[in-house]
C-alpha cells in the first residue's frame, strides 16, 4: 500500500502537465494543425493579463484569439501569416518575443553593449596594473640610501 502511494506521488511529481488554458472544445481534430496552433499560441501575449501567453490565459479575449488562430490555420494561412494578422491589429506588444527592428536595437543590443563596456574597463584596468608593475629600477643614489636604512635596522 505504501509503495503504491509512493509510486503515485512519484508519478505526479515526474509528470506535471503544463497548465494550459486551451479548452478541449477549441482544439482542432488535425493534430498537426493543433500543434502549430499551440506553437503560435505560445508566442502571442494575452493583452488582458499581459504577462501570459494566450495559451496560458483563461481570459475571454485569449480564448477568442485562440479560436481565431485556429480558424486562420484551417483556412490555410502559414504560421507567419497568422502572427502577422494578429500583429497588424494589436501591434508589436502582442508578440511575447520582441522583434529585432530599429526601435528595439537598444533592447537586443544592450547586453552586448554592457559586455563591451565591461571588457573595455577591464582592459584599461589590467593595462594600468602592468604599467605600475614595470616601475623603473632604483637609481644608484636610492640603492645606497636603501642599503643604509637596512643596515640601520640590522645594527641594534
Amino acid at each position, binding site marked *: 500500500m505504501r509503495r503504491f502511494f509512493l509510486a503515485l506521488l512519484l508519478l505526479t511529481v515526474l509528470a506535471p502537465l503544463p497548465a494550459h488554458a486551451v479548452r478541449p472544445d477549441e482544439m482542432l481534430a488535425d493534430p498537426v494543425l493543433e500543434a502549430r496552433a499551440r506553437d503560435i499560441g505560445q508566442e502571442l501575449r494575452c*493583452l*488582458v493579463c499581459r504577462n501570459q501567453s494566450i495559451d496560458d490565459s483563461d481570459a*475571454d*479575449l485569449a480564448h*477568442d*484569439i485562440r479560436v*481565431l488562430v485556429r480558424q486562420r490555420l484551417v483556412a490555410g494561412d502559414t504560421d507567419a501569416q497568422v502572427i502577422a494578422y494578429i*500583429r*497588424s*491589429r*494589436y*501591434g*508589436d*506588444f502582442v508578440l511575447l518575443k520582441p522583434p529585432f527592428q530599429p526601435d528595439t536595437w537598444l533592447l537586443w543590443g544592450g547586453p552586448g553593449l554592457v559586455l563591451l563596456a565591461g571588457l573595455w574597463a577591464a582592459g584599461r584596468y589590467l593595462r594600468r596594473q602592468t604599467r605600475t608593475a614595470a616601475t623603473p629600477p632604483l637609481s644608484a643614489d636610492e640603492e645606497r640610501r636603501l642599503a643604509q636604512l637596512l643596515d640601520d635596522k640590522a645594527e641594534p
Partner: protein
Amino acid sequence: MRRWLYLLPVAVFVLMAAGFYVGLNRDPDVLPSPLIDEPAPQFDLPPLPGKDKGLSTADLKGGVSLVNFFASWCVPCREEHKALSAFAALKRVPVYGVDYKDKPNAVAEWLGELGDPYTQIGADDGQVGIEWGVYGVPETFLVDATGRIRYKHVGPLTQAVIDKQILPLIARLGR
C-alpha cells in the same frame, strides 16, 4: 584622476531620473495601436433585437464619426456614459456603438436605464473587437470621412478627453 569622472554619477542620475519621470507618468494600460491612420477594418454587424439598423464599415464613410465599443457588463462603460451622452447631444458627429460580447436583453435594459446616446449600434460577439484591436471595453475610436481611424482612446471617456482631444480633432478633420 580626470575631474569629469566625478560628474559621471551625477550624469547617470540625471539620465535615469529623466527616464523614470517620463516612464512613470505614462499609463501602462494604454497600448499603442497600429491601426491609427489605417482604414477601419471591414465589418458588418447585425442590429440589436428590435432595432432595424446594425453597423457596418459603409456607415463610417462620408463623415467623421465616433465609434464606441461598450457592453452592459462593463463597469467603466457606465462611468463614461454621462460624458458620452453629453458629447452625443452636441450632435457634432454620429456616435456609433459596438455592443461587445453582450446579452441582447441585458443591453436593452442597460440602455433603457441610462439612455441611448447611439446613432446606430451593432452587436459583436468578439470577432469585430479583435479586428479593431480591442483588448478591453470601453474603447473609443474617431474615424475620419474617408473611413480611416484617426484616434483611439482606451478606458472610459471623460469630459476632459472629449474637450481636449476629441473635439479639437473633429474640428481639424472637418465634419
